[in-house]
């Protein structure tokens, strides 16, 4: 066996090394030094992120007889996720250093890194066995992370709901895979594509629906989304933010890879229409529920459901431009959503308040927090000149470029939904800035780490759109991608 193949997996190996070092540190360091676990992990991960930017890209390589594949795009999406994870790590420092977390601090970081490893595998897998391993290692530890807040009842409830639905969804997914295996006799992506031919029969369509529902669960597409709100609300805020951006970003990319590489030839015959339906339902239902929410975390849960719908728009375009727009959308979404969660986390850590009414008059007591939150809301709603506007613009453009009437209607519905979403995003801004009520939250100074995290997010929200470098480098990576080679 050619062991140099492992070099292609350098990003996965990097995460593994970070994980092992954190694990060793947590296990063998004296009790006093454990307070520094959070900082240690963050710094280690920062080094890894930088290294991954510098050395992570090995070009297009297929390793282990085609089970694993990496390319500039894969390495780019992993780097994007790394940036998000880094922000989550920075934002979580204060929470993990709290009293309740003393004994579980290390576990949080270890579990987080394991799930990240799983997501990497999902992104790079070109064989369903490897993909399922990635999917499961990205899902199961998350349940433990959701339950991390041991003393809160909601945390347990959320974990139970998460694990049960995750198991159920995996079962359906595997069922779909077994159909696919039955039809194609292989689990290699490209083999399946070759064996399936171009004729879509009923069994294949059902298999496709099951596979889509399995990944759709991770992306929380409607109707596979019902766990989302309860879990987001119950989980500790750091876990929620991780779930809402990183897990979703990885799943979206993996989704695209599977649809394009395995089922590429059935694009116009089958899954294009499935996606249309899912996107419309996801965006609309997410918005309709978001309007009614009073709890900030629940509110962001539904907002993230509808955002997932927008991310899917990048997939229906089914070309390099759509891929680039989707990756850029994920990047911007990471920054915007983490800015919002950063503010929520800071306030929750300080006062324990998470209701929207608690945010009344926040601009007067904590102007900087309110400002960061406002930018996050503007960006999520897609108001220029913030990054969210550009990401929405690019993703709509890429979808429209596909050119069919159906997609015009789809984009039109998405646009109308953007207007509706403006309403509930601005509700938060209204509460913070316009509401005449006395501030519910006293003025306080957030912890250093929280402020750092927020500054990074705010800078990203402002700069990602205006500075063309980011989108250009993504589009450059996407242009050379071989993902769409199967689609004739």
């Amino acid at each position, binding site marked *: 066996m050619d062991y140099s193949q492992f070099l292609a997996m350098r990003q996965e190996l990097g995460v593994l090394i970070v994980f092992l070092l954190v694990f060793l540190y947590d296990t063998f360091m004296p009790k006093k030094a454990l307070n520094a676990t959070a900082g240690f992990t963050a710094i280690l991960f920062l080094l890894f992120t930088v290294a991954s930017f510098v050395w992570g890209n090995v070009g297009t390589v297929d390793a282990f007889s085609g089970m694993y594949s990496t390319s500039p795009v894969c390495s780019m999406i992993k780097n994007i996720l790394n940036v998000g994870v880094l922000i989550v790590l920075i934002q979580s420092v204060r929470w993990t250093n709290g009293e309740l977390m003393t004994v579980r601090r290390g576990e949080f970081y270890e579990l987080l890194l394991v799930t990240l490893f799983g997501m990497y595998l999902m992104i790079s897998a070109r064989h369903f066995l490897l993909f399922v391993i990635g999917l499961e290692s990205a899902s199961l530890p998350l349940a433990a992370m959701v339950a991390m807040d041991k003393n809160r009842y909601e945390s347990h409830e959320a974990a*139970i*709901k998460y694990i*049960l*639905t995750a198991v*159920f*969804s995996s079962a*359906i997914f595997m069922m779909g895979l077994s159909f696919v295996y039955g039809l194609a006799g292989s689990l290699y992506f490209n083999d399946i594509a070759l064996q399936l031919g171009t004729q*879509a029969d*009923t069994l294949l*369509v*059902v298999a*496709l*629906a*099951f596979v*889509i*529902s399995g990944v759709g*669960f991770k992306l929380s597409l*409607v*109707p*596979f989304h*019902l*766990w989302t*709100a*309860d879990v987001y609300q119950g989980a500790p805020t750091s876990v929620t933010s991780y779930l809402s951006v990183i897990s979703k970003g990885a799943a979206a990319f993996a989704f695209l890879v599977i649809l394009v590489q395995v089922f590429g030839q059935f694009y116009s*015959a*089958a899954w294009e*229409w*499935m996606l249309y*339906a*899912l996107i419309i339902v996801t965006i609309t*239902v997410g*918005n*309709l*529920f978001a*309007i*009614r929410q009073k709890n900030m975390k629940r509110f962001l849960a539904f907002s993230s459901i509808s955002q997932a719908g927008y991310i899917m728009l990048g997939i229906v375009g089914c070309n390099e431009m759509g891929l680039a727009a989707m990756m850029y959308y994920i990047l911007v979404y990471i920054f915007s959503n983490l800015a919002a969660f950063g503010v929520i986390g800071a306030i929750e850590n300080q006062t324990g308040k998470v209701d929207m009414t608690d945010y009344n008059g926040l601009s007067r007591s904590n102007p900087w927090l309110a400002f960061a939150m406002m930018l996050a809301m503007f960006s999520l709603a897609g108001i220029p000149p913030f990054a969210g506007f550009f990401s929405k613009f690019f993703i709509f453009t890429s979808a429209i470029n596909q050119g069919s009437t159906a997609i015009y209607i789809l984009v039109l519905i998405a646009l109308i939904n953007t207007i*509706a979403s403006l*309403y509930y995003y601005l509700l938060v801004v209204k509460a913070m800035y316009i509401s005449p009520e006395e501030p519910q939250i006293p003025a306080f100074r957030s912890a250093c780490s929280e402020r750092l995290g927020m500054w990074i997010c705010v800078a990203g929200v402002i700069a990602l759109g205006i500075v063309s470098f980011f989108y250009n480098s993504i589009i450059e990576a996407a242009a050379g991608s071989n993902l769409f080679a199967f689609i004739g």
Partner: protein
Amino acid sequence: MEPVIPIIILALPLTMFLVLGLFGHKMKHPVAGVLGTAGMGVTMVLAYITAFTYFFSGNPEFIDADTHTRLQAIVFNVDWLAFTDSLVIRLGFLLDPISALLLVVITTISFMVHLYSNGYMRDHHGVWETGFQRFYAFLSLFSFSMLGLVVATNIFQMYIFWELVGASSYLLIGFYYTKPSAVSASKKAFIVTRFADLGFLLGILVLSFYTGTFNFTDFTSTEVAEGVYRVSEGTAEGIRAMIQNSAAPMFMGASVLTWALVLIFMGGMGKSAMMPLHIWLPDAMEGPTPVSALIHAATMVVAGVYLVARLFPLYLMEEASLNIIVVVGALTALYAAMVACTQIDIKRVLAFSTISQIAFMMVSLGVARPEFHHGLGYMAGMFHLFTHAMFKALLFLCAGALIHAIGSNDYTAMHGLRKHMPITHITFLIGCLAIAGIIPFAGFFSKDEILTATLGHSTLWYVWMSLVAGLTAFYMFRLYYLIFWWKEHKVPAGHHAPHDQPWTMTLPLVILAVVSCLAGFVPFGNLVTWNGEEMFESVSFITNLKALDWTVASVSLAVAVVAILLATVMYKKENPLPSKMKNALPALWRWCHHRFYWDELYMFITHKIIFGCISKPIAWFDRHIVDGTMDGIAYVVQRSSYAIRTLQSGNIQKYVWVYLIGALLLGAVTAVCLM
């Protein structure tokens, strides 16, 4: 030329704006004032160095020694927005006779105003005006924008800075934003000039659509070396030919080029307050007086003149557009001079005087033809721009000193101030002599050149403009006598007598007075001509005197002297003559006093016609149809959101059921559709 100094000239005022704007409120007042003034001082020195290098270094980039022709040099030019390979918007620095001239004018006046404001923007007890730092920040922003405008290498850059200039003018007019009149004046100025800029923008679009370029040098010059251009009629003819050979060279009976040029001139009419777009300038006097001196007398309002001068070779291609400029200019000049005779607010008199004088420059450009004395009109217009900037800024700053001392804008509150404020008196007198055109003050030379050029074009306009020149002398000396003579000044009980202002305010007056005495001797014919060719073989201090056309000069001198004598008779001592005159021609006086009811006309058009007939129906449509639709959508969204709320029950069994049914439905529906 190395681009370092030009970059600093632009960057320094911008930096000052950012520093004073962002951190000004944390600075002490004197610090902000000194910082702003020092920054402008350095900019001024650098601008002088640049202009001096351009005019006198003899560098082959700047002058063709064999033919004695000044060239245009692009010091730097960076791509800013590259839409396509050919459609590129650049930001750069073009150095040629007029931009070098304007660099000097802008930085000089701006520095004087910066210095002057240190004294003006505080009251007699030394209490600083609210927003003093903001004032300096805005002044710096204005200076930056104006400098960027004059050095523009392409018409789009000019447009960008043109709007920036308008915005900073808006901010400065409305500086006293608690005063309703200042707020409405700033709005008026912005809206009127913005309306005019619509024409400008259309002109730019038409011109660049047909020619495929924004660059000035592509319109008017040929390249002689890399980055060095020479004005040539051939290029302008090429542009005309290009438009004539295009698919649609005519539009509504006029050539497209004429349309483009007239539309561009419309932008110039707005900024330079030409009739009928002049109505904003008198109101703009609501701003602090130094602002009026800088923006509304010396620099921004001549941007229109500068624009025409910049595209002059193109204007030459279309006789019609030049004729329009002449007619607009001549009408405006007479109108403004007549109105100026009847105003009682001294700043309004100066404002109308400014309108009238800018109209002189416009007429001068409009009558310029290369056949007549190497385009004498062009050179005269630029010369007048230069001298006018100096003496009009002087007059405004004097007015500021008077207002500061008296606390009122009306001359009725002044009278007989000559003994109390001797320095202001003398400098104001010099300004009046200069604008009246008395030899050897600056205005004499430039006005004489303009009249000569006009005579070379048509006798009608010559007589017309000479009449306006006489009116100018009359109303300026009317103002002078009413302020400084007429009757003894009565000091109200409990007040101390008015006196000259602190040195920060008098020093600029003295400097500008000296410049107004001497500026006429600058041998402009060798510095600024339409195609850069020098007019004289050799120059000395008295070149301009020798070059005078004495027939024209003696006539205009005689007219000025008669007008001044008339003013002396009427206004030197308190007497009933003025009111007799007024009663003899009551209608004329009333029309002049009410500025020929232009404002009322505009009010009628906007309020009655536009608001009533167009805006109201649209507002109804918006309120009932558009809002109604939106309310309907919101209602539906709310209802459906309420209706589906049970989906999220919190019951996990139900979640899984929905999941399963969803997946099966997805498959089933697609499968059925495929069959």
